[in-house]
């Protein structure tokens, strides 16, 4: 199993712990990958609001690069997944539009034929590796821990761009993976809502209220941590939680926000440093402690 790896800007920027933990966990799982080092940012929906064709061209270039490598794309960012899925759908539905974009790409000798598959690591776990194989790599049974799933908008909407018809299991993939570790997935309403990051720099008060609602809800449901496949959600839910806590009656929340690979790494018995768990704004100490004292997985 080999992938054209597309980590996305935030894994290379504001959440270095995602990159570290993803690499550690993927190595353990034996996932071969080759990074598409020349790829551009997907535009994250922001470039698209200025010029959709520009955003689409940057993404189609990435698809063409992967096509040339003969590999499917794997990303570790919900937002990248969604933006790429939407761009791919637009060009596949409209051959004339694709031809226009290919004309732009022709300058560097690239052409997209339309065959590239784009899969988030979360989907790779459920569809390609399979839960049974995944569980074989776990040395800990995280029973006694409760995790709140938080998907990120772009990996759940619009549903018709994300292949849910063909792969209905994608809609509950995060809960499936959480539960595969022996932990409980709490049922938080906020799990498919917006974290607030896209308006953080535009209407900070609203963005922080979203953080307060979602992390507060998960905490009230007894979650030890929140788990997300989206580094953009992580940036807001972790980084702005101290501010959001002021909006709770108790004045505190203290809910660690784990990247998906970090939770898997804990189940694989990896050391906190290998997973970058010291690089969080909200302390991960308690959840690390609980995972460390979790029973040995018996398979």
């Amino acid at each position, binding site marked *: 199993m080999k992938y054209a790896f597309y980590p996305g800007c935030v894994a290379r920027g504001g*959440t270095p712990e995602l990159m570290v933990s993803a690499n550690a966990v993927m190595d353990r799982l034996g996932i071969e990958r080759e990074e598409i080092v020349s790829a551009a940012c997907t535009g994250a929906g*922001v470039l698209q609001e200025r010029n959709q064709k520009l955003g689409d061209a940057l993404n189609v270039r990435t698809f063409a690069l992967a096509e040339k490598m003969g590999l499917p794309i794997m990303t570790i960012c919900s937002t990248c997944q969604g933006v790429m899925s939407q761009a791919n759908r637009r060009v596949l539905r409209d051959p004339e539009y694709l031809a226009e974009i290919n004309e732009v790409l022709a300058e560097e000798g690239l052409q997209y034929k339309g065959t590239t598959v784009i899969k988030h690591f979360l989907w790779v776990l459920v569809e390609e590796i399979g839960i049974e194989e995944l569980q074989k790599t776990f040395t800990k049974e995280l029973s006694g821990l409760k995790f709140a799933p938080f998907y990120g908008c772009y990996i759940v909407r619009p549903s018709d761009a994300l292949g849910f018809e063909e792969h209905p299991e994608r809609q509950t993939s995060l809960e499936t993976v959480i539960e595969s570790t022996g932990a409980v997935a709490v049922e938080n309403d906020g799990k498919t809502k917006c974290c607030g990051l896209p308006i953080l720099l535009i209407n900070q008060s*609203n963005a922080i209220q979203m953080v307060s609602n979602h992390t507060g809800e998960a905490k009230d449901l007894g979650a030890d941590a929140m788990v997300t496949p989206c580094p953009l959600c992580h940036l807001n839910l972790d980084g702005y939680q101290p501010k959001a806590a002021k909006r709770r009656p108790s004045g505190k929340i203290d809910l660690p926000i784990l990247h998906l690979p970090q939770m898997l790494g804990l189940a694989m018995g990896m050391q906190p440093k290998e997973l970058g768990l010291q690089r969080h704004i909200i302390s991960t100490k308690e959840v690390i402690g609980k995972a460390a004292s979790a029973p040995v997985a018996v398979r």
Partner: protein
Amino acid sequence: MEQTLRVKRYDPENPGEAGYQDYTVEVTDTTTVLDALLTIREDMDGTLSMRCSCRASICGSCAMRVDGQAKLVCKTRISSVAPNGETLTIDPVGNMPVIKDLVVEFKPFWDKMRAVTPYLQPEGVIPEAEYFASDEDMVHLVGVVNCIQCGACVSDCTVLEVDDSFLGPAALAKAYRFVKDPRDGHQKDRLEDLNKPSGVWDCTRCMQCVEVCPKDVDPMGRIMVMRDMAMETGFNNTSGSRHTESFAKSVKKNGRLDEMKLAVDSMGKFNIPALLDSAPVGLRAMRKGKFPWKGHKSSEPDKVKQIFEKIEGK
């Protein structure tokens, strides 16, 4: 076969007794959620209140939440949402005050529609007969005119959930309908208004409205177009506009996004209060080693820049 519906009940005269009530009805493959609710009201419990009229997804009266997601219940077959006979939870639409059971107060919805001046304001010489518009323009506008004002998008909007001053997806889609109408003479004023707080820049692009709209109006897509139009018209002095520009500049230069620069640029380089307010967050992040000092780049930024130049023509 039998189907159970858990229906949210609320009686303003007995608010303490609000809660869910289960009803089990006989259904077939083609029974809609509305059919089931009507059976409950007609045959089992006449006290259940709801709105509905045309039963053909034209009137927009019967939007409700089915398992947490806003839908026109007349358009929703039970077999499509509960293929294995799972219990369905029915709530009134969100982000509007409940009057009784599944009936909500639409006043906030109509107030916002009114706020976007939802009628044509032509300028110039009044023609002798009709105002003309091209077929192409009108076919495009039909995509928005299709809105049946059911409130599904408003119900599930994640911004309205935290800020009821936001104009919201339905009113903004309505605004687009007039901003884009070739017969209207106030495009610039409209964009200026929409550029203010609670307008186009407050949308968080979560796509809930796109997902739940039963008529594919795509409110969020319209909001994005109006953002671009506002910037093109010269309304550039907003955090939102600076955010988009800074984002584009960063990707054009390095092929990738520079989050640190994006933050400073969006708030405005001279917006000292906002920068100071965010400083603790930045410092905490730096202490935890969150930001790469070297930045990160595509290995071929020139190729990315070339695409920018080719498409934007500059």
